[in-house]
């Protein structure tokens, strides 16, 4: 299998990844910082620009590929993972990214989303989760909170929302992370990790839609004092948070619980391990966010190395060719019982 980074390292800069098209998002939209973060991570990877493909569905967020000066496909609603799977398995030498929205990935595209997770195809999925349908002007999405008033729920949403991290873990994901559009550095780190993961990497970005869901994540933003709710997961480190690190997480009775560090002692805090084979703890961490606002885990929940779908596909081909030799069309046509007519 061709490797994605074998070409000689090239010196690229952020600008090399900006296409000639001016983004058409609303001023102040959280999609802008995500674009900037992606454009700043890619040059680090040493992969030639032409070996990136960005694939998307439909939505504000799905306009993403147009703004990247790489190969790109703006697909149809919800189907980006299917196109990406085709590209990644046909061409393992490419690095394939998917840009998708909460409606695109979790509503119409929910099936492809969960199957991409379990298959572990070598693609990276960035979910722009603004908890709303932006492009169609403000209907609720599968991540909108219960009771929320939107255009299509004038009396309040009655659908219980998905937790995208829980869903991905329930679907056997090998890499799951969450970050926020307002923290450029954190976003960059998480995206970098995703870029390096082998297999399906899923990154949920909490993204602000200034027009239809302004302030959905204010409870986490520094300017609204939300830092206190940000739980940063770091591999190998005990999980502490709060303005002075006075809060922490313990895993108790299978659940992740918020505790006062002083009370329980630092040594009893949960020490984050992304690499646990069993995803139960990662799942427990994902449950920390209650339906609305509250302490929220950010960072890489899970990162385990499993054979990727395309590795397995290509190794089966290689093994067959090894065993049977490369296919001989003439012989194939003549196989089975044949007879001659003179």
């Amino acid at each position: 299998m061709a490797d994605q980074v074998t070409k000689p390292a090239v010196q690229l800069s952020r600008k090399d990844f900006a296409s000639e098209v001016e983004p058409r998002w609303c001023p102040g939209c959280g999609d802008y910082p995500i674009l900037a973060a992606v454009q700043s991570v890619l040059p680090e990877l040493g992969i030639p620009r032409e070996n990136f493909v960005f694939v998307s569905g439909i939505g504000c967020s799905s306009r993403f590929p147009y703004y990247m000066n790489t190969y790109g496909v703006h697909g149809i609603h919800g189907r980006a993972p299917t196109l990406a799977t085709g590209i990644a398995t046909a061409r393992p030498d490419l690095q394939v990214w998917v840009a998708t929205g909460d409606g695109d990935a979790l509503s119409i595209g929910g099936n492809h989303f969960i199957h991409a997770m379990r298959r572990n195809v070598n693609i990276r999925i960035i979910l722009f989760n603004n908890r709303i349908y932006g492009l169609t002007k403000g209907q609720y999405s599968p991540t909108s909170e219960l009771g929320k008033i939107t255009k299509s729920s004038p009396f309040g949403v009655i659908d219980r929302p998905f937790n995208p991290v829980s869903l991905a873990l329930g679907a056997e994901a090998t890499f799951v992370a969450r970050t926020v559009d307002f923290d450029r550095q954190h976003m960059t780190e998480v995206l970098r990790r995703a870029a390096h993961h082998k297999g399906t990497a899923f990154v949920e970005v909490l993204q602000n839609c200034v027009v239809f869901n302004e302030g959905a994540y204010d409870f986490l933003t520094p300017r609204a004092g939300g830092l206190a709710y940000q739980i940063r997961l770091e591999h190998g480190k005990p999980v502490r948070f709060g303005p002075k690190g006075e809060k922490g997480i313990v895993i108790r009775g299978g659940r992740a619980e918020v505790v006062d560090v002083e009370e329980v002692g630092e040594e009893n805090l949960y020490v984050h391990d992304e690499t646990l084979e069993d995803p139960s703890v990662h799942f427990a961490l994902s449950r920390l966010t209650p339906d609305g606002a509250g302490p929220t885990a950010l960072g890489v929940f899970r990162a385990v190395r499993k054979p990727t779908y395309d590795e397995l596909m290509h190794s089966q081909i290689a093994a067959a060719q090894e065993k049977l030799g490369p296919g001989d069309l003439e012989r194939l046509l003549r196989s089975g019982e044949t007879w001659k007519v003179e």
Partner: protein
Amino acid sequence: MGTVTVQELDSVVIRFAGDSGDGMQLTGERFGNVSGILGNDIATFPDFPAEIRAPAGTTYGVSAYQVQIADYDVTTPGDTLDVLVAMNPAALKVHLPDVVRGGIVIVNTDGFTQHNLDRAGYTSNPLEDGTLQGYRVYRIPMTTLTLEAVKEVEGIGKKEAERSKNFFALGVVSWLFGRNPEVTEEWIRQKFRSSPAVMEANLKAFRAGYHYGETAEIFEAVYRVKPARLEPGLYRNITGNQAMALGLVAAAHQARLTLYYASYPITPASDLLHELARLKNFGVKTFQAEDEIAAAGAALGASYGGALGVTGTSGPGLDLKQETIGLAVMLELPLVVIDNQRGGPSTGLPTKSEQTDLLTALFGRHGEAPLPVIAAYSPAHCFWAALEAVRIALKYRTPLILLSDGYIANASEPFRIPSLDELPEIAVSFASEPNRDGEFWPYLRDPETLARPWVLPGTPGLEHRVGGLEKDERGRVSYDFANHDRMVKTRAEKVRRIARDIPPARLDADGGAELLVVSWGSTWGSVAAAVRRLRERGVRMAWTHLVHLNPLPPNLGEVVKSFPKVVVPENNLGQLLKVIRAEYLVDAKGVNSVEGRPFRASDLEEAFLEVLGERAAEGAR
């Protein structure tokens, strides 16, 4: 052989029928293959229930396989049966009506237990109550004789031993039609080589059946069908699905591309996936997707990546793929979509066959989303149809729908194996350079074909974005009124121009013919037989069979306007008929049956005469 006479026949139709678990498909297929190998032309028709193993003994659980063998080029499995092999009462009940009066009925008397008679809904035993009067009936206790024959084989219990009774039946029929037993014996040895006991049992059963024919002296005659005069060459029997799979592999070979086949299982297309999944050493990539939408998306993604993206399905799956096919229309990338039509609407009759997806293939997408459509007409033709489909899709960078159906997908016939240099050249070139003032414009077209350039991602300097929104030549999203109108019309023109690049409709016409038959797809066989028979009856006939359904061959207008009467026989309610009428304004008539199976040639014969009217019909007498 005492008093046994030998009768020469030019063709014989045999149907093997029994429970789903009785192995009738294998037996029938085997008889067909042997006959092919022995030089006959053959046509087969497998017919099995939608249930996997419906309860034993029920009429809806009957599985059947029909073979016509002939000394000329047969095109159908036959309208009526000369020979019926019935393994149980249900099989007899379902299939006896198709046997010609005076025909042969071979029954496994051991199957006619009271329980089975009840199951089949017989109130009295048809073997005894006169039901079979007028037929030549051979009553053979096949189960008993099989058990007897197999008893010394070690490692075979009674249940397994019983399972060999289909080989006993095959042996009897092989003897009756003078089929060399060695071919089948060799085949049994190969097929069951991994379980020697089963191989042994089947061999013994087969031989016992063969010898039973020879020695039991119940048959007054044996029959011989001479070899047919086929085009010289190397032959194999092939089903439509096998031929289609080989055609795809051959096309990828010719185009020097990786074949990427993405599919979601569905009857009667699943075998394409099964066939291709085995060909990993050919570098074939198969992807079993989570649904048909994902299959189409993955195939399109593979094409975007520079592979030959193909996705196969049947009607319900085609419905689901249409949105993605529309995207392919917009992306202008090659994508071959195979639709093995089955009985609809909805789940309909999933194991039966019809031609009811033509209009949805042509028009079943929102917006103006034209694409080429072609149809295979026989099992062996699937091979060539696949090559033609790939040629057009690649050259014009377009999704294409290739129609087959449940009948030709599962039926088989002899296939003359082409040598590699008989295969068409399929040249593909990828863009590698900017094409407009140092820029790369993804929708700048070839002035001849109107195809846009195809680029391998990974090509430096040609980075660009495509997508489902309307674009200008440069590849930028454009909401401009005039641009959209022009693009819509250009995409249509691109498809229309394919007409320059396909063979003209072949007209097979007698001088002075008054009636033109226009057909497509799997009705080919029945139409060929009907036309032949009418000619034999002295009726002058004209016939054209279409492979290219969009665009239509450029000469077709002229052809259909040259005859006073035009008839379009279809296993649907008149789909090509609509197209022909709209296109050429000729008052063509339809002959339509939607029974889940091909026309009987004799029904077509009558229908054509009817269209011709009394005068012609009289002329024929």
